[in-house]
């Protein structure tokens, strides 16, 4: 319908009656929105319509031009020539005095002004020349508009938006930022809201200018209004830099304590991120993270725990300090899961430092062994603890068994109780630890050594992957039969060097939940290397013997190498000797070229041929051999199946 009527509408655009023209222009706007291809029809009349006096038609024309420019770059170029004219219109609007028909609370036709400004914004974007023409005008509008009423503020806001978008002079941009700063101080919340939104857009490009208004922004954090405080939060997080990080974090943490729950997650992650980027000292970083965990523990991201443990692990001098702080935090409150997890891990790792008693950085805290154990047991039994947290606590208890000087009966008791826990993960851990106590007590100290610093790998999954990669790189001996109740395979590692107390290369111990492998040290008794498989004599006829020798290479479990050796003890040579082999379908066979096709007589050099058999399904091996040769002038063909293949060839 639009296409049919477009030409009609165009004609109506030039009607004498202003009312008809106004309607026609608005129709044109809607048509362009629906069918952008009609723009070439409506381009020509626009120039003429700009000379209108009637504000309604003028406004409609501006809207039409805006729509045209937004939808077609050709129209944009065309209308750039009209920038001076638009500037002139706006100037007359601003400078003419009071006119009853068009003024709203002292501002003459703010709607038209706003619309012209918006069009100027579109025309001036990325275009130096037009932007320059507009500079003066924008400055004039910005300074002359009366800001006591909302209409004036609306015009001013649009001016600021335009200044931000076009290629304006630096002075003009500073002016824009100052206007926004003034808005921020206004008591009207609406104005503060728009100011915060625009400042957020500006902060990328004019960072230093926005920094000047930082105190006001921080004030806005305390607003009871949800949308305002959210905007203020985003802006504050964007404004944090290395010089103001301490003050800002203080403010943000205050906000975290009082803000509504939907903002807490954002705020917590924001603080943690800022702390990571700008932390002045490691101790400050640990402190900040601790505080965030204590206030908003349930809302932090999943990797916060991993990051914190890594951080503490890396800061050697702060081990005593962190373990004390975590201990006191845990003693007060065991409901915040991430905090409990980190605290449990830390107490497990550095329990000995906790009990030593002296640390300059915190108040002296006398902690008894029994208290520590009681606390960890409380965590284990609390209904608020997640299964993962329980895992952490159990492992920590186990580690303490080597760190504490007292006897381990209490720990052994707890561990054996959890051996019948309903949670499979916990049960498995408990059983493994139990076995550690009973059968491998001599290895316990070495296994529960301190963890070396894991490389920063991003998420928990990455860390686990790295752990398993590390173990794969370390030399492995052949696998050992599994623990009676544990379902996972235990890899034995060769002891690398030195006694178990060596802090340089302790073997890695993985405490992460969803437990990966437990690596036991390989002390004196290494398992024996795989026994060699005996050779097999498969064929004998008139002096010609065929022997098979088997090799299972240690790296690949599915490969079998057979060497066929043909020896001739008779008087005559065996010539044209060909040996072929066949295996069941699930196997893959590769025959390599024989060393020769003549087996010389009288025990001469035997002929060898290599067979490679791949047995991915580990099925029992069956082998059929076919021999053709000439012996004593006769051609012989033999087909037979190899029986009595030793079990080790395919298991």
């Amino acid at each position: 319908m639009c296409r049919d009527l477009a030409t009609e509408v165009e004609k109506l655009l030039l009607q004498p009656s202003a009312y008809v023209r106004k309607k026609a222009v608005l129709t044109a706007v809607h048509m362009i929105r629906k069918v952008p291809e009609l723009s070439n029809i409506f381009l020509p009349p626009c120039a003429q319509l700009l000379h209108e006096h009637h504000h309604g038609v003028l406004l409609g024309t501006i809207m039409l031009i805006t729509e045209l420019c937004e939808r077609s770059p050709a129209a944009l170029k065309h209308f750039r020539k009209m920038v001076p004219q638009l500037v002139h219109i706006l100037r007359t609007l601003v400078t003419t005095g009071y006119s009853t028909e068009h003024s709203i609370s002292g501002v003459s036709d703010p709607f038209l002004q706003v619309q012209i400004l918006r069009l100027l914004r579109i025309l001036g974007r990325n275009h130096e020349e037009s932007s320059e023409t507009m500079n003066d005008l924008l400055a004039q509008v910005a300074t002359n508009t009366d800001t006591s009423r909302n209409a004036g503020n609306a015009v001013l806001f649009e001016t600021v938006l335009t200044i931000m978008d076009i290629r304006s002079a630096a002075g003009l941009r500073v002016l824009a930022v100052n206007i926004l700063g003034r808005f921020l101080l206004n008591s009207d919340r609406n104005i503060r809201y728009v100011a915060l939104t625009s400042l957020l857009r500006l902060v990328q490009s004019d960072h230093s200018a926005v920094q000047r208004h930082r105190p006001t922004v921080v004030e806005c954090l305390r607003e009871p209004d949800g949308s305002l405080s959210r905007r203020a939060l985003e802006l504050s997080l964007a404004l944090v830099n290395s010089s103001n990080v301490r003050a800002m974090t203080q403010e943000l943490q205050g906000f975290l304590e009082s803000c509504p729950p939907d903002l807490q997650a954002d705020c917590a992650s924001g603080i943690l991120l800022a702390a990571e980027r700008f932390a002045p000292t490691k101790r400050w970083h640990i402190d900040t993270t601790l505080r965030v965990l204590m206030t908003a523990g349930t809302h932090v991201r999943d990797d916060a725990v991993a990051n914190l443990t890594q951080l503490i692990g890396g800061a050697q001098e702060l081990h005593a300090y962190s373990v004390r702080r975590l201990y006191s935090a845990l003693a007060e409150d065991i409901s915040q899961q991430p905090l409990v997890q980190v605290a449990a891990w830390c107490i497990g790792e550095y329990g000995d430092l906790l009990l030593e008693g002296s640390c300059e950085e915190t108040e002296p805290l006398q902690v008894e062994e029994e208290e520590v154990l009681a606390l960890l047991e409380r965590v284990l039994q609390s209904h608020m603890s997640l299964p993962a947290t329980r895992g952490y606590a159990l492992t920590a208890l186990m580690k303490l068994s080597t760190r504490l000087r007292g006897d381990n009966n209490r720990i052994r008791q707890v561990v054996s109780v959890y051996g019948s826990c309903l949670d499979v993960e916990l049960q498995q851990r408990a059983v493994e630890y139990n076995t550690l106590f009973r059968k491998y007590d001599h290895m316990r100290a070495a296994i529960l050594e301190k963890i070396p610093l894991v490389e920063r790998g991003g998420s928990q999954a990455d860390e686990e992957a790295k752990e398993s990669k590390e173990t794969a790189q370390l030399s492995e001996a052949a696998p050992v039969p599994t623990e009676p109740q544990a379902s996972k395979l235990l890899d034995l590692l060769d002891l690398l060097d030195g006694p178990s107390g060596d802090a340089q290369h302790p073997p890695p111990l993985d405490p992460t939940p969803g437990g990966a492998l437990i690596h036991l040290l390989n002390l004196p008794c290494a398992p024996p290397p795989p026994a060699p498989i005996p050779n097999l004599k498969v064929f004998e006829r008139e002096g010609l013997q065929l022997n098979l020798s088997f090799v299972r290479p240690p790296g690949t479990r599915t490969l079998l190498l057979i060497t066929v050796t043909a020896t001739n003890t008779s008087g005559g040579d065996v010539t044209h000797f060909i040996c072929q082999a066949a295996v069941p379908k699930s196997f893959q066979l590769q025959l390599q070229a024989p060393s020769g096709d003549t087996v010389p007589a009288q025990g001469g050099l035997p002929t060898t041929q290599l067979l490679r058999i791949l047995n991915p399904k580990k099925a029992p091996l069956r082998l059929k051999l076919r021999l053709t040769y000439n012996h004593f002038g006769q051609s012989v063909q033999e087909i037979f199946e190899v029986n009595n293949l030793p079990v080790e060839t395919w298991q």
Partner: protein
Amino acid sequence: MIKFFLMVNKQGQTRLSKYYEHVEINKRTLLETEVIKSCLSRSSEQCSFIEYKDFKLIYRQYAALFIVVGVNDTENEMAIYEFIHNFVEVLDDYFSRVSELDVSFFSAVNQVFHSTWQRTG
């Protein structure tokens, strides 16, 4: 770009609605109830601009009647705010001290709205 213009009273009854983008009939009531709910839950201290789904709501309360305008991101919120007030002033002039009854019973409101709307873009 303005998406819709609503006049809804506190009990959730729509007195005037204009949609500038196609929204199905059954979805309209749902939209209106949700919008009025978010506006009602605001106290007088909070600002008049709400973020709702992918557009912004600008509302103003006049006694028991809420006037809500839904816009997309490109609009100047303050200008729309002014527009709402301008519209109310025009109505006031037309009906000489307009009240909610006038709005619900007189179809002339539609006309007035259209004219103001054109006038102010």
